């Protein structure tokens, strides 16, 4: 009796194990984990919808989308990559951010044909050393803009018919808006921001675009144009004076929910990016319009237009084939349709947006003769970017001098080893 019971138990366990094994191998279902730092912005909508559509097209693959905090996303991604416990796919910023993390990222070149690669508009900035022959690390999600937005109704209320185009027009507009009891430009952070104070590189990109050509930005990387250059200092001084002249809210470093202030019509202008365009359009309708930040003595001719983000496959992923499949799906007509529907501007040739705000942004370079520049923080050393996030803000808030902030950037660059500021982007 006792023996029979034992035999029965063994058979039951064996059957259970066998059926479990059969379920695993039979279904062959793979789960991809995807991390993003988009909060609830348009990019997040696109990421979630891409995952859903991909699952539908690939019934054997499910995608678990995880929203990570924007403020320390890269810290989390790096820590998880070191311990090989992170996602299969992750949002990656392009340019030197991707190069910084390239040890963790799968080079995608072997997985995409030359024809497929040629469809990516900004392949250069996805590549090690910005050289596509060395492969590429990121599949871009969208074409992005650092952009100013203005409320036409508030400008009209102050007697202004158009957005300012240079420093003097900006200062004049500020005076009129102040007289009309409107905050001219709102600065601070929004709830989904990457830091609790303004991200200074939106403005810094336009400050530099106001004085040098795109090619000269490499000189900032190599140090041939020192951060303490008088031309940069002069631009910075004008920028810092915005707060002093009352062009901004007083609490530029600590104000929160600046998007809310702009949407509610408390501020006339905001320095932001196209990822919030859909939010502005939804709230303000035709009253909102984009403008290039007028940080130039002559009418600003630079526009910051660049594929700043996308998805990468992490090297340690056990499902690299499936993760690459997801990136291919992003490139497909179905994927691009989802990206466009979310209000983003596609970066794959042959696809375009129909959104009116996005079209206006594209027209700056396409029809109005503006020169496209990359985002400055994507083409200079991340260490300098980090220092800038602190010191440029401190200068903007009036806590340290412009020269002290710029010296700090220079000191950070000076401390880097020679091969991190040479001819090759590292």
């Amino acid at each position, binding site marked *: 009796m006792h023996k029979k019971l034992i035999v029965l138990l063994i058979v039951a366990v064996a059957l259970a194990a066998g059926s479990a094994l059969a379920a695993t191998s039979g279904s062959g279902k793979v789960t991809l984990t995807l991390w993003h730092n988009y909060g609830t912005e348009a990019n997040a909508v696109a990421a979630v919808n891409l995952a859903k559509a991909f699952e539908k097209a690939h019934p054997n693959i499910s995608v678990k989308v995880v929203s990570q905090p924007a*403020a320390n996303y890269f*810290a989390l991604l790096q820590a998880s990559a070191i311990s090989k416990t992170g996602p299969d796919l992750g949002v990656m910023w392009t340019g030197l951010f991707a190069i910084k993390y390239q040890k963790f990222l799968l080079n995608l070149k072997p997985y995409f044909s030359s024809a497929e690669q040629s469809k990516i508009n900004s392949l250069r900035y996805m590549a090690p050393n910005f050289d596509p022959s060395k492969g590429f690390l990121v599949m871009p999600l969208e074409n992005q803009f650092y952009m100013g937005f203005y409320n036409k109704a508030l400008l009209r209320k102050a007697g202004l018919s158009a957005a300012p185009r240079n420093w003097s027009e900006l200062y004049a507009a500020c005076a009129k808006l102040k007289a009309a009891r409107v905050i001219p430009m709102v600065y601070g952070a929004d709830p989904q921001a990457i830091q*609790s104070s303004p991200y200074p590189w939106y403005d810094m990109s336009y400050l530099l675009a106001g004085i040098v050509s795109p090619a000269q930005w490499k000189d900032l990387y190599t140090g041939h144009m020192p951060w303490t250059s008088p031309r940069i200092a002069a631009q910075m001084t004008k920028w810092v004076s915005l707060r002093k002249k009352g062009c901004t809210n007083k609490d530029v470093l*600590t104000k929160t929910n600046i998007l809310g202030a702009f949407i509610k019509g408390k501020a006339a202008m905001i320095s932001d990016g196209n990822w919030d365009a859909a939010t502005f359009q939804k709230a303000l309708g035709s009253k909102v319009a984009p403008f290039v930040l007028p940080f130039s003595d002559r009418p600003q001719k630079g526009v910051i237009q660049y594929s700043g983000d996308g998805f990468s496959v992490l090297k340690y992923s056990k499902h690299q084939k499936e993760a690459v499949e997801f990136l291919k799906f992003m490139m497909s007509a179905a994927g691009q349709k989802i990206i466009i529907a979310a209000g983003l501007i596609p970066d794959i040739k042959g696809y375009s947006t129909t959104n009116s705000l996005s079209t206006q942004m594209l027209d700056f370079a396409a029809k109005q003769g503006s020169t496209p520049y990359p985002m400055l923080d994507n083409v200079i050393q991340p260490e300098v970017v980090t220092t800038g996030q602190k010191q440029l*803000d401190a200068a903007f808030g009036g*806590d340290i001098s412009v020269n002290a902030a710029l010296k700090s950037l220079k000191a950070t660059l000076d*401390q880097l080893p020679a091969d991190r500021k040479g001819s090759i982007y590292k």
Partner: protein
Amino acid sequence: MEAEQPPSTWRHRRLRHRQTDPLAAQRRRVGLLFTLPGVGLIGALLIYPIGQTVYHSFTSWDGITSRWVGGATYSHLVHNPEFTQVLENNAILVLAIPVAIAFPLAVAFLIHGKIRGWRFFRSVFFLPTAVSWVVIGFISVRFFANDGILQHLLNNVGLGFVHPDMLSHERSALVAVMITFVWSMFGTNLIIFLAGMATIDEEIYDAARVDGAGSFSVMFRITIPLLKRFVQFTFIITLITAFTALFSLIFVMTGGGPGYGTTTLEFFIYEQAFSAGDFGLASTAGVVLFVAVAAVTLLQLRLLRIED
């Protein structure tokens, strides 16, 4: 008659007896056996990581590959202009420690004197201890913000022309962090002092009062001297908290800014490791932090021993 032997010889003999006694030897072996798991755990979870950190402090380490560079990381750290400010911030933070000890000590004395409603106050003052640093940070931001509670208080008492906007400036932001730190340590230190006061014999107080001692004399001549060990303990845990446990508070309140105004050594370590990806330099700063805390603690212990 056997001559009386000097005590040292007695001790020597007793020791030899213990060494040859099989029961004592067995006890020693069992004792060692019982301490092994503890030693293993401490070794694996404390000594080994500390050793690794010290090793990596001499390397260029990006989290994956490390290369021995000797003292170059220390030289790099010393020449880092921000590091000087970070050290300054830590030094200023130390100034909050006496306040974080003196306030709860005074309040503990009042509560120990069983003033009216002492049970209520004891609970209220202990409350911040049960609140997470993150929540405390958010409350503080609301309090110190430009249009926050502090500004509203000033407006309501007719001081609306004063705009401290403390989180917008380097030094005042650090002061805001220090005030928050003192407030959040209040409960812990209060309970420690109350526990200490409960150990003091009531008869000593009675005798002092019979001799005509007032409240201040009792506090300064009896309570505080008898609480010396408790003060020493609170000093050490407050120091360690200030240097190694304020990360989440700073992260929420100021993000280490404006500029590097509230970047402390532990925050700097996080930034170097996870923002800059320089784990070697972060390890170096970690060793500096470890040495700083150990040095201040040892100095404090030594000063108290000298007084004893």
